């Protein structure tokens, strides 16, 4: 190069470097060589809490909505306290006597509502299991 200003002195680095930078650089590089140890696998670490929270949320919401819709329209109004007390004291009660205490409609209604409740609980169980499965699939994919 002919221009005298582009000479060897211009090869000096024009830029400033913080003191001790290159020693720190080496340390930083070494500390980042093993990312697996430092990886924060969010889902894996918190999967149990997240699963429990989601199940609780689903159940809570379900109960809240179901409460408003009332799936337990069981009416015991027609059965008096004396009759219940008598029933408890007299375990060995004949069918005829039992039918006198509780009407067929009430029994039928009670039976149907119980079946509904059982089905509902089974559905919620399946939903919870699906949610847990979903999270266990997720945790392998997501790493932060």
């Amino acid at each position: 190069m002919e221009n005298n200003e582009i000479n060897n002195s211009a090869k000096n680095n024009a830029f400033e470097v913080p003191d001790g930078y290159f020693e720190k650089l080496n340390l930083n590089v070494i500390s980042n060589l093993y990312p697996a140890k430092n990886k924060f696998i969010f889902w894996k670490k918190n999967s149990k809490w997240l699963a429990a929270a989601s199940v609780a949320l689903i159940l809570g919401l379900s109960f809240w909505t179901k409460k408003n819709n009332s799936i337990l329209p069981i009416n015991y109004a027609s059965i008096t306290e004396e009759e219940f007390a008598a029933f408890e004291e007299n375990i060995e009660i004949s069918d005829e006597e039992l039918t006198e205490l509780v009407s067929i409609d009430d029994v039928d209604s009670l039976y149907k509502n119980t079946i509904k409740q059982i089905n509902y609980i089974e559905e919620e169980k399946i939903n919870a299991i699906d949610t847990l499965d979903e999270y266990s699939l997720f945790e392998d994919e997501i790493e932060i």
Partner: protein
Amino acid sequence: MLQKTPISDNDLFKQFVEQNRAENLFKELLNRYNKKVYWQVRRILIAHDDADEVTQIVFIKLWQNASQFKFNSALSSFIYRIAYNESITFLNQKKRFTSLDNLLDTDGHYTKMINSGFELNGDEIAARLQKALLTLPEKQRLVFNYKYFEELQYDEIAEITGTSIGALKSSYHIAVEKIKKYLDLN
């Protein structure tokens, strides 16, 4: 007294790979190349923080991709190639968020930095040269950096950048002419 000849870079790297990426050998490689890589990257990216980030990435990638080096060329070319690619990647990512067009300082951002003396060590001639370099298009600036500052041969630069030697020579010649003109006018 016989002086022990230091082990060559390629032999050192070979041992590093054979010993399953021995950390002590990697530290030796770091000591040999940290400044070279940093300054190469710094001249492209200008800002220290950016250069620091990319330099670290370069060495981490060297560690992770050690087995990809086939020992049919100089280790320095392999490392500088990583540095070149990572610098360009960094700039392309930055382009999405700034007005930086390739490496051309079209918005004057880096020129303003240099004018303000930001992160400069007070060497006026060197600072003027940096300002001149910022007026050059990407390829010319990169070639100039490798040829002038790193004093690499054209075949090494060709290996790093993937550009033909003829194109590199042409770019360098044009870069020199432009810098001379800039320094004459400024």
